[in-house]
């Protein structure tokens, strides 16, 4: 009868109520839960909370195994605890340090010589915020009547999950549907000292020591973002790049971003791989590494070594073999409905193979899946044209195709690339470098020129591109874009002012603003 009450309170229509009631009664006899979600992160929680709104009985299991350095965290997943949220806060902290210097140029009588960050205070306030989010997450689960257990769930058979309680008791339960949303964790390189002496993004946001001279191994967005906020906070980061920066992103924009970082004094060790880490007598870290181009071996001493070489899916604890779920490269294979090869077992978020590993992707996919399972919806997740941002001090945000993808799919003769450098008004007074303030639009050549991709390096890139992501999804054309009146003075308006094409060979550097 509690079931009827929860169905009524979710506001569903009478006929749906009856259908759900009948279905759930059938399941109540067969299964302990309508849905068990393995993983309480962005995807898992979104799916669980959406499902209860349609009357499903849901259990969510979440557990965080401590890092080799001993770090652990509460419910909410990677984004809340060791990803997007703390990253953005530290990015903001580093930008504010820059702003103090700019303030002097604008007339503030601030003494900006020798300003220092209080790392311990920064970590404390960031962690306090994270804990408040953990709390709100738990209250939300409680209010929405999602059962939550802090333990690792694993398969006994396709419909049975088991977990160990805090008291060590083994419990089993059955589920009509299971959604695997366990996400991933950072990889460690298979070299000496990796686990014992290196840390990862799992540790940096609660690191009790000042990072100091840091080696960031890896040039994906995690590595670049970490190196940038460490630099902005006054520490001394070096980025070790195995081959290229930001694999998978537009090549030209990625190289611009690396050049921007170099201009800011971040050292890059290109085509270099780490060979081993040892502790020095002074307690620092000696890293041996090899330049694969010159085939020379070198070493250097750092205070901190941060591995940012990629993430692996957490299939290891799930005992997927007992359910017969197929995996590939430690990720779960799913079809366009997020179904695994076992019809009633699904997966969302970072754990699935071949999809963007982003919080909003996991959240939307999780919600749509819950609606298909419990509300009769047929809407599938659209993984194309997902906008994303790299939060370096000049940020890079993009949506749609990279230039090389457009060339590959349509041919260079069938596309037009509009591009331009620009100079943000606010940069002049503090004489901030705008050398890498650049944007481009990749579009079809013919007709109204449907836009295939937008790319932007500059301040608040995520804020700039978000609206364009919706426009792109609506079929934005160059004709419409250039007939859109810009908001002045902003950097986003530069998209409406584009006029120079790559094909023309004209210098895309502007003379001054407003012309």
């Amino acid at each position, binding site marked *: 009868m509690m079931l009827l009450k929860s169905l009524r309170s979710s506001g569903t229509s009478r006929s749906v109520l009856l259908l759900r009631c009948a279905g759930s009664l059938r399941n109540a006899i067969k299964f302990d839960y309508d849905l068990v979600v393995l993983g309480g992160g962005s995807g898992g929680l979104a799916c669980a909370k959406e499902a209860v709104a349609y009357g499903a009985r849901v259990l969510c299991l979440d557990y965080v195994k401590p890092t080799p350095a001993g770090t652990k965290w509460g419910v909410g997943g990677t984004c809340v605890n060791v990803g997007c949220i703390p990253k953005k806060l530290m990015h903001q902290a580093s930008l504010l340090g820059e702003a103090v210097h700019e303030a002097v140029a604008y007339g503030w009588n601030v003494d900006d010589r020798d300003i220092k960050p209080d790392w311990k205070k920064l970590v404390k306030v960031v*962690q306090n915020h994270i804990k408040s989010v953990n*709390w709100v997450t738990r209250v939300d689960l*409680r*209010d929405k009547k999602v059962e939550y257990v802090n333990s690792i769930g694993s398969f006994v058979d396709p419909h049975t999950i088991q977990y160990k309680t805090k008291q060590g008791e083994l419990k089993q339960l059955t589920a009509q549907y299971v959604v695997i949303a366990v996400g991933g964790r950072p990889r460690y390189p298979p070299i000496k000292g990796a686990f014992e002496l290196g840390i990862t993004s799992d540790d940096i946001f609660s690191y009790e020591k000042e990072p100091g001279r840091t080696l960031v191994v890896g040039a994906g967005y995690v590595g670049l973002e970490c190196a940038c906020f460490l630099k902005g906070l006054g520490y001394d980061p070096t980025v070790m790049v195995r081959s290229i920066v930001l694999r998978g992103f537009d090549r030209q924009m990625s190289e611009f971003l690396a050049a921007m970082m170099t201009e800011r004094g971040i050292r890059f060790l290109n085509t270099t791989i780490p060979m081993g880490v040892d502790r020095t007598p002074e307690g620092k870290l000696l890293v041996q590494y090899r330049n694969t181009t010159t085939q020379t071996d070198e070493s250097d001493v750092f205070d901190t070594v941060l591995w940012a070489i990629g993430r692996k899916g957490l299939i290891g604890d799930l005992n997927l073999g007992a359910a017969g779920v197929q995996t590939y490269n430690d990720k779960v294979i799913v079809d366009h409905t997020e179904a695994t090869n076992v019809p009633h077992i699904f997966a969302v978020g970072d754990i699935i193979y071949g999809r963007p590993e982003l919080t909003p992707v996991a959240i939307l996919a999780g919600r749509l899946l819950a609606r298909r399972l419990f509300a009769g919806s047929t809407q599938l997740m659209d993984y194309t044209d997902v906008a994303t941002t790299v939060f370096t001090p000049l940020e890079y945000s993009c949506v749609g195709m990279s230039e090389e993808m457009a060339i590959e799919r349509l041919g260079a003769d069938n596309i037009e690339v509009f591009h331009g450098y620009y100079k943000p008004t606010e940069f002049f007074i503090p004489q901030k470098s705008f050398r890498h303030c650049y944007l481009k639009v990749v579009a079809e050549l013919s007709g109204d020129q449907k836009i295939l991709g937008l790319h932007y390096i500059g301040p608040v890139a995520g804020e700039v591109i978000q609206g364009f992501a919706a426009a792109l999804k609506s079929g934005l054309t160059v004709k419409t874009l250039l007939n859109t009146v810009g908001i002045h003075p902003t950097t986003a308006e530069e998209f409406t002012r584009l006029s120079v094409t790559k094909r023309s060979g004209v210098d895309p550097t502007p003379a001054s603003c407003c012309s």
Partner: protein
Amino acid sequence: MAAAAKDKTSTKKVITVQSKDDFDRVVAEAGNKHVLVEFFATWCGPCALIGPRLEELAQEYADCLVIVKVDVDDNEDLAEEYDVSSMPSFLIIKNKIKLEQFVGSSGEKVQSTLQKFCGKRDEKTTTAAGAGPSQKPNRVVSMIKVVSPSKANVMHSDKK
């Protein structure tokens, strides 16, 4: 007297409970006294602000109530039982019955609630000597009351 004043920290009156059993025991031991419960979190800014005020109030209202703190991260069961979603949340319990519940770190609200149940207390004693020293005798009197119950009645009558 001065030594007793410095000793103040060793007779902190606000009790931080460790578990539901601990909480139930403290509530039972309060007898007929009111219990002011504060649900807090270590990461909650407003909770940190009101913390010192609670200790002061515990001293002032010691004859009428017991003040208890519950860390919501350590005591999720209690937080759930009292449907606590934001901090600080306050309860007034007497004889195991919840009389009132409110949210927010307003010192005035807490004080006015205590006055409602316990009556007014003078915060400052007025003496010819001035505001500063006049506060201390009040506190020292409360502490002596705790430390030497046999002298309490004598002190109490002097306090007029």
